[in-house]
């Protein structure tokens, strides 16, 4: 049993950069390297393969850019990727993302980056009702996993799962939908980002309910939670990213300032004296 098996034994010489604050773990899961500046460092190497993440954020916090960069970087490495757009038409999405240097339209033409309009998927499945039944939800999960299977998708984004969940009438059904989707995609080795639109980030006061998700049920089921938000620094909004939870890896839980540059997302630890200004 050696390093090539993805397993390290205690007492073996450690490679450079393998140490964490808590020491080197005995077993290290294979990672899906996001390629987003700073994010893989925060996650100590990347997202554990096959994880399903909730990427929750307020409007304008950079969720779509981050998710698009995640799939595009996978496509650049030759992986098949898919992006389900539910909040804006795919044409508009691609037009917005063309300004970033990481994006290359060739990836779309070569079939490495597959962008689907959620509305088209609904019509294709005959899901024209305002509210979905359990059968509708199952049909949707099957359609998504069929696409993942057929194309061999290893990175998937649903932007946003909030829009989709609004069609699901109760929390239990939302929970079932996300659990089934996450489980199915994990068995296919697909690392997934589910985008969630939230109005504020953090812990609610009094109610004891966390504000990482839209419906309050997503966070317990999924493997990871990443939140994006804004800090109001004397009238100026500074974007930040924080990883709240990530199963299968040690990770930083600090707030990181996020800047959208022509090269995409860039992250740096937020100044400690600047978090609560």
């Amino acid at each position: 049993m050696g390093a090539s098996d993805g397993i390290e034994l205690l007492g073996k010489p450690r490679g450079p950069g393998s140490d964490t604050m808590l020491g080197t773990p005995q077993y290290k899961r294979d990672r899906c390297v996001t390629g987003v500046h700073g994010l893989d460092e925060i996650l100590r190497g990347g997202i554990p393969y096959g994880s399903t993440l909730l990427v929750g954020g307020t409007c304008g916090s950079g969720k779509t850019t981050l998710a698009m960069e995640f799939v595009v970087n996978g496509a650049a490495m030759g992986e098949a990727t898919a992006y389900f757009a539910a909040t804006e038409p795919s044409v508009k999405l691609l037009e917005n993302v063309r300004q970033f240097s990481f994006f290359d339209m060739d990836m779309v033409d070569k079939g490495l980056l597959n962008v689907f309009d959620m509305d088209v998927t609904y019509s294709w499945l005959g899901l024209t009702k305002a509210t979905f039944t359990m059968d509708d939800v199952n049909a949707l999960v099957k359609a998504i996993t069929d696409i993942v299977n057929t194309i061999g998708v290893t990175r998937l984004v649903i932007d946003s799962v909030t829009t989709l969940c609004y069609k699901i009438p109760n929390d239990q059904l939302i929970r079932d939908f996300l659990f089934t989707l996450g489980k199915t995609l994990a068995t296919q080795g697909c690392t997934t980002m589910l985008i969630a639109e939230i109005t504020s980030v953090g812990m609610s006061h009094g109610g004891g309910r966390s504000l990482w998700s839209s419906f309050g049920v997503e966070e317990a089921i999924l493997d990871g939670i990443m939140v994006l938000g804004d800090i109001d620094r004397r009238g100026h909004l500074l974007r930040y990213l924080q990883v709240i939870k990530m199963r299968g890896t040690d990770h930083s839980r600090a707030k990181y300032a996020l800047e959208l540059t022509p090269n995409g997302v860039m992250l740096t630890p937020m100044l400690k004296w600047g978090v609560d200004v």
Partner: protein
Amino acid sequence: MTEVTLNSSVQVRCGASNAFLVTASLIEPLITEFEMQGVYISASRGALELINTLNEIGVATENVRFIDCVSSALLGGTESTFPNISFIDSPIMLESILLRTLYHLNTIPGDSKFVILDSVNALAIYNEDRMLAEYLHTLINTFRARDVLSVIMNVPDQTPPGVLANLDLYCTDLIDRGQVVIS
């Protein structure tokens, strides 16, 4: 300035009256003599005014990326024809300044790069002392780790004592109005 060490951080102290002359006398040898490229963080004055003045005295600025922290506060201040200027909303967005600097450094070819911060006292107008000291600590260590020369302009009598003390501690060199007193 007769020699530079890439991973050093130089504090340049100047007076309020000779700040521009000191700036010009620093940037000119970096560009022409040492053939370096870099980033100029402009918090004292608008980048457009700075470029025009430097060009007037014969200092070429094409290979310098300017991060303008001032002009966004002025109506029409961000209308510029120079492609090497990028604007930051406010000098209070210290992390944005750092990330923009890193972005520009990534776009500059070669290994010989500098960052000029103009100036600590200008940032002190907008930022609380502890946060500014933390920012300078981060900035200096970030660029030293990347083998980038950092030059930090400062008018000492307009800089909070706590920030000044930290700056003295973090910087590897000190130039006082053009004369090296500690090396």
